[in-house]
């Protein structure tokens, strides 16, 4: 019994001291993981994930407090990337947090706009220009399509419109496999 205690005590003191020493000597700061996760998120800042923006969601993922499948604008693509980065299993987009939609921009019906600035306050990326009592306009290139400006408008003059394809933005489509026809 005494030998047992002695032997283990010897080990414990050595290991404990070494670990304590190492913990202080070799300490490093910061968590680069959050940045990496944030770089994957689409920065729509829409809050559908249940967090007040992309960065807070990234922080929650890094801490292991949130699943990776809660960002609808990022879509399956984004989930795949997160799964890759974190070595987790891919999961389909959680339906609780919404569904994937085509990318769109906000359009303000300039005839109806009363210049209340409520939408300006709502927009997380300052994509709406205008001043009080003047008509407002969305800078389409900067709009992330988060829809946050839609609800606050007292006269319902903001609508979301899906972005149209042009020769410049056109992409080759996924080759359609016509298996069914052959059967």
């Amino acid at each position: 019994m005494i030998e047992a205690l002695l032997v283990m005590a010897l080990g414990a003191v050595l290991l404990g001291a070494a670990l304590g020493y190492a913990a202080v000597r070799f300490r490093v700061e910061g968590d680069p993981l959050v940045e990496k996760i944030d770089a994957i998120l689409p920065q729509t800042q829409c809050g559908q994930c249940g967090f007040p923006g992309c960065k807070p969601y990234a922080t929650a993922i890094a801490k292991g407090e949130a699943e990776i499948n809660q960002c609808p604008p990022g879509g399956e693509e984004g989930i795949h990337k997160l799964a890759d980065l974190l070595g987790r299993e891919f999961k389909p987009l959680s339906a609780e947090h919404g569904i994937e939609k085509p990318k769109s921009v906000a359009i303000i019906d300039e005839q109806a706009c009363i210049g209340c600035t409520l939408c300006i306050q709502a927009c997380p990326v300052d994509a709406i220009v205008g001043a009080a009592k003047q008509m407002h306009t969305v800078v389409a290139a900067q709009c992330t399509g988060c829809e946050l400006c839609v609800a606050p408008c007292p006269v319902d003059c903001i609508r979301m419109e899906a972005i149209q394809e042009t020769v410049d933005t056109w992409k080759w489509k996924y080759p359609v496999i016509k298996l069914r026809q052959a059967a």
Partner: protein
Amino acid sequence: MSEPIEVTQRESGVFRISLRTATIMLAFTLVFTALMAGTYKATAPMVAASTLAEKLRLIGEVLPAATYDNDLMADAITLPPQASLGLDEETRLWRARKAGAPVALVLEAAAPDGYSGRIGLIVAIGADGKLIAVRVTAHKETPGLGDYINPKKDRNKARPWITQFSNLGFDTVPREKWRVKKDGGRFDQMSGATISARAVTNASGRALAWTLENRDKLFALPANSRFEARSTP
């Protein structure tokens, strides 16, 4: 859980912190080692007893208790490692007697050449030179294939494979026939798993041969003494 050590302590307190973690580690270790060692000490006698009971049970399987009347545990000798038994560590050898007359020897043996390594055996050999019974004490043979050498796993419940050695000696099965049929011997094997059968058969043959050779000396040695093989000149 307490939080990680604050950064402010970083420069000043390396030594202090080492000391602190060492102390906590020491405390935990002492408490839990004491708990463990205490339990170990407290249960040691009971554990020893149940280990003994286990041995006895195994011995009982190869040698019916009714056939002897002495205290096997008392009437045992120590066997140094015996290559011819496949043993590489010290074991005990028990001697059964009835009314003082030698009845049987019970010893451990091993077959090193099983399909997946060593097969441990316990063998009882009668004073008349017959093998009374053999059982497997430990093996790693493939479940469902080679593990029929353990009668509990043998699908033939009526006459498990390993019982075919019972009550045979070199007088009924000559030494050179103490092999599996596939090797030209007398004993059955399970086709598809000859290796296990061969290993057990050969090992039991070797154990029998070794015992016959040393039978008289083994019975003659005083209890708790140590068996020394004939020193080869």
